């Protein structure tokens, strides 16, 4: 046994060029599987991020019934308890508090209906991209409390620029009395998308609370998770923890159900492509192995001629396949790791289409330990399996015929 193993290694190492070519071919196949896997994770994250990153968040907590008609009285129940619980929650990455209300924004030129969003600028920056796409002014660097940040389309409709006056009117909680405040435009953002740039107005949380008469209360907690899949996993324990006592906790998949369908369709295509790659790599292994063995019929013929048993030749070929596999895996892992690592740092950036200049356009492949375990294992097993058929061929050689040197 040991002898055949040593023989196998020696054979492999003897013809360096052939081994290197075969090993690199298979190794590249392995590297591509790892890379593709990492890329697919990156795509998925990117898709989720495109839904959740602009403003929605990966999950939201509201008072039950708030989403239906945005009554200002329906604030998150037991806020302090929920917040302290979220701070300690291991699944939660970031969260921010928001006040939401319908309102009217008046400028010297016109009036527009808006969604008023009271935010905490420091934590809001992690949850939404509004601060990343500020075109003029800033995202609440000022401290007067009268800052208001609006979208470029809204600024255009109201004909205002940085520093101009706006009056915001809302209906208060507990009675619906109308209250008004004067603000000055301190920031104008632009996603380059009408829906986002035309309908929202951001003010400081405290200001929104006093405007609506709901001191200390909020309407929405938006969250991101450490595991990006939590937002779409309805069975995750997180949801049960907060969906109670008068509150609702919903993942983005429930907040925007039509997105799930689209994501599924796109995901299907990605998986399909991954499968094609997988098949190709497998075929490549078979091809490489077959080639390297069939080219050496003479060699095996000699072995048989000097007395090696058919089974011995069989074993030798299979072991050679195994050794080649080990070598290829080494090459493949190294290559795979380096390329994927570099790509994971740099990311893929898509130019040429006018996206807003935010991080949503960069795809980052994601390295995972699993990739470095299952794919090499597959290559190992498959390479050896691929060697079995030619091994039989080699075992059944008739030495006289094999030794004939043909062109």
């Amino acid at each position, binding site marked *: 046994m040991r002898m055949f193993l040593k023989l196998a290694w020696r054979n492999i190492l003897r013809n360096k060029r052939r081994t290197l070519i075969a090993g690199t071919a298979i190794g590249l196949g392995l590297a591509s599987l790892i890379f593709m896997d990492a890329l697919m994770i990156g795509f998925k994250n990117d*898709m989720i991020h495109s839904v959740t990153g602009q403003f929605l968040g990966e999950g939201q907590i509201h008072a039950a019934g708030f989403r239906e008609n945005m009554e200002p009285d329906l604030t998150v129940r037991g806020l302090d308890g929920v917040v302290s619980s979220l701070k300690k929650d291991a699944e939660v990455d970031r969260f921010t508090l928001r006040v939401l209300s319908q309102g009217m924004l*008046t400028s*010297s030129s016109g009036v527009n209906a808006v969604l008023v969003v009271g935010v905490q600028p420091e934590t809001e920056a992690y949850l939404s991209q509004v601060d990343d796409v500020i075109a003029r002014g800033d995202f609440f660097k000022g401290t007067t409390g*009268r800052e208001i940040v609006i979208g470029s389309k809204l600024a255009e409709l109201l004909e205002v620029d940085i520093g101009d006056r706006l*009056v*915001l009117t809302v209906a208060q909680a507990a009675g*619906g*009395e109308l209250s008004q405040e004067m603000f000055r435009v301190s920031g104008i953002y632009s996603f380059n*998308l009408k829906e986002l740039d035309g309908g929202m107005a951001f003010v400081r949380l405290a200001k929104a609370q006093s405007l609506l008469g709901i001191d200390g209360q909020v309407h929405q907690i938006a969250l991101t998770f450490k595991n990006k899949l939590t937002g779409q996993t309805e069975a995750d324990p997180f949801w049960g923890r907060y969906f109670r006592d008068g509150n609702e906790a919903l993942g983005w998949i429930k907040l925007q159900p*039509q997105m799930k369908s689209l994501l599924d369709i796109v995901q299907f295509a990605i998986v399909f492509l991954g499968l094609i790659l997988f098949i190709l790599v497998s075929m490549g292994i078979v091809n490489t192995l077959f080639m390297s063995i069939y080219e050496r019929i003479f060699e095996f013929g000699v072995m048989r001629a000097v007395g090696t048993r058919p089974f011995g030749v069989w074993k030798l070929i299979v072991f050679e396949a195994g050794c080649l596999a080990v070598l290829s895996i080494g090459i493949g892992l190294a290559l795979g790791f380096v390329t994927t690592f570099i790509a994971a740092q740099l990311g893929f950036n898509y130019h040429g289409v006018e996206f807003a200049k935010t991080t949503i356009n960069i795809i980052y492949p994601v390295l995972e330990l699993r990739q470095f375990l299952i794919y090499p294992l597959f290559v190992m097993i498959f390479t050896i399996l691929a060697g079995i058929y030619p091994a039989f061929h080699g075992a059944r050689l008739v030495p006289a015929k094999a030794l004939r040197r043909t062109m």
Partner: protein
Amino acid sequence: MRITPHRPLPPMRILTLVLLLLPLSGLLSAAGPQAAQGSPASSAQQDQQVQKIIRTIDEMYRSRTSRARMEMNVVTPQWERTLTLEAWTQGMDKTFVRILQPKKERGVATLRLKNEMWNYLPNTNKVIKIPPSMMMGSWMGSDFTNDDLVKEYNLKDDYAVTIAVPPDAEAGLLYLECRPRPGLPVVWDRVLVAVRAEDDLPVWQKFFDEKGKLMRTMHFRDIRTFGSKKIPSVMELIPQNKEGQKTTVRFLDIAFDIKLADDVFTMRNLSRPL
């Protein structure tokens, strides 16, 4: 990826018929800024004169109760309409308005009690309750916004007023320049008011934004005496930034501080046939 309805909701220039005639006085106090105490630049005599003018304007439409018949004419680039209305008010919290003309809207009525509002629509014989968030838009497609109607900015405390002498001053008119106090929720930076020297009644008001551009003008005309009050019976609001748009309110008849029946401000009254 965002698959929101790509169509934005058309702006709610809804029929805030809803909004009808919040206290008439509210409407008009927006029209007549008053003085803060003691504008430092003016002399004591000027000060007194300013106070007097302001008091006149302020008291112009204010009363504990009122009943009025009026015409509202709205002109937009696309259409023009004239409504005849009858309105009752009590204090700042109770208002009842009914449309008399034209025929299509005859019998439509609105009741407002503090922060709650109901509409009656004879066409469908239904009363609908209007949520507070709906009360913020423009008033019947007119150029008055809720701002104008809700404000009870009591200019005594809210504006700094001084006598002004503009370059194109006309004889027989006095001019006041009114600046809102810092933080007052208004979008204009300054209001110029022209009043008649003889009786302190306003002739026009001009609203300027912070850049000094004229935003809108309110004209007051046709001074008449209703009971014990002598007031302009016509108010005309012209926005300067919109072509071909104008709203005119003409009071045909007003009675102030009269006794109103108990059931005026009730739901029953809403659906009472005309």
